[in-house]
């Protein structure tokens, strides 16, 4: 029943990962509930006259022992920028946990996880949670340049790391959909993706053609984040669904793409 909360978290870390991405680790006062890849939190951005609503960020890492959760925050506009300026020991108020979650794959399945930009956050979380043999997991991370990539070396124990960059400065040159691990999608039992809309659509198109199970996590403009305002809709075969509550994870077969 009362499975969601609003709470002040303590900022225990704020590390700049690269030119535009920050890792923000938040410690809860009460014990965290179990959190799942795909879920997000809605953050109150304080101290700006022109930011009124909260801002949604995916859960990237959870540590139940420390009672912390981490976000990867990319500077996009005024709210995200302000959030990256938050300091250790300040409080950060979040609404959580929000959204549905990715379907956890079955043992033995071969999976491809694709993250673009700050969309890597839920993908790395998912890789960790899957609990699969690293050999059966391909992680494909895409960004514009090497600079924009987040260091994911720690995640090689959860899957094979592959990189794509538009300028070829890290991994293969081009979009993720041009990467060699993306060439034959029939190799995978499941594909999961999170990233910019255009990327999600390109992936969905290929996954559909290859008839492979594929879940994508969508981003759009939210007012409430928990399903009451109906602002964040995505058209589906079953009508308009909320990205914040019915999503953010959708099976591509349910989308009208």
């Amino acid at each position, binding site marked *: 029943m*009362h499975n*969601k909360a*609003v709470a002040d978290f303590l900022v225990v870390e704020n590390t700049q990962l690269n030119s535009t991405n920050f890792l923000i680790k938040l410690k809860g006062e009460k014990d965290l509930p179990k959190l799942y890849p795909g879920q997000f939190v809605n953050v109150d951005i304080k101290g700006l006259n022109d*930011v*009124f609503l*909260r801002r949604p960020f995916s859960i990237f890492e959870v540590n139940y022992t420390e009672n912390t959760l981490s976000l990867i925050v990319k500077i996009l506009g005024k709210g995200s920028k302000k959030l990256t300026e938050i300091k250790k020991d300040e409080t950060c108020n979040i609404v959580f946990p929000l959204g549905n979650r990715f379907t956890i794959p079955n043992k033995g399945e071969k999976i491809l996880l694709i993250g673009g930009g700050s969309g890597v956050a839920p993908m790395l979380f998912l890789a960790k949670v899957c609990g699969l043999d690293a050999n059966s997991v391909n992680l494909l991370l895409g960004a514009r340049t090497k600079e924009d990539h987040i260091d994911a070396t720690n995640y090689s124990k959860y899957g094979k790391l592959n990189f794509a960059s538009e300028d070829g400065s890290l991994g293969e040159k081009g979009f993720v959909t041009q990467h060699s691990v993306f060439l034959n999608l029939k190799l995978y039992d499941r594909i999961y993706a999170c990233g910019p809309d255009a990327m999600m659509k390109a992936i969905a198109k290929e996954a559909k053609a290859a008839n492979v199970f594929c879940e994508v996590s969508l981003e759009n403009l939210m007012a409430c984040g928990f*399903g009451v305002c109906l602002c964040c809709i995505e058209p589906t075969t079953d009508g*308009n669904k909320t990205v914040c509550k019915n999503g953010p994870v959708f099976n591509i077969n349910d989308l009208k793409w």
Partner: protein
Amino acid sequence: MVDLKVKIADLELKNPVMTASGTSGFAEELMDFYDVSQLGAVLLKGTTLKNRDGNEYPRMAETASGMLNAVGLQNKGIDYFIENIYPRIKDYDTPLIVNVNGSTVEEYIEVTEKVNELDKIPAIELNISCPNVKEGGMAFGVTCPGAEMVTKEVRKAYDKTLIVKLSPNVTDITDIAKAVEGQGADSVSLVNTFLGMAIDAEKRIPLLSTITGGLSGPAIKPIALRMVWQVYNAVKIPVIGIGGIMNATDAIEFMLAGATAIQVGTAIFKDPFAPVKIIEGINDYLKRHNIQRVSDLTGALQL
């Protein structure tokens, strides 16, 4: 102990704090956070006769101390509500009020007749003020004849408490309030959203798919408060105050201006607990000021 009970015509509320329609879903979403039985009442999402997909994305734009929405009454229609949602929520221990919408008078009547049959719905809020739909909606709410006509017909079809929700997009809201009072409305709630617009200067496009949308939030509070005060001084039926109420102080201001009860809308998006905190805050205020009954606040502004 202070007495938080208020009455909207025959409808008794535990306290004057309701949630506003379209900002609290069908109460279930708030149940994810806390027990809605604490609330004075819950106004359910605007309901029409048939399924409505609502408007296209984007439906939302943030503005200074507020937001625009262009949801456009997305809902699955009254029958779906009755069959699928009502059974799940009907035993919540707080009055559930259906927000009734239509493109034509006939549609308003049909929805009302169906709601009239629902035991656990003690009141309806007639929405003649939605700025986000092409037909009906606000059109009825901005002229006296329009408001009169639909109120009159719905009144005939409804036995329980009839609240009419007024549009602020009018020259003189007291005219409309008096018109619906004259046709048997038990209460008026105000305000719905203001018609507004937002533009992306870089891309040179409107930020909403519908170009214009409804403005809500603290930005509109001063105008809403003025309207509540004007209407309170113009009609005899109880007034429900709505518009940018974020905290107990705001709520008390609306009551002082003449509201018998208030609705919390956009504040819920920032903090789902806002209505609960407002109840607590009103309670504290009454104690601090040694006021026995919350109803003593209504219209208690000293001029």
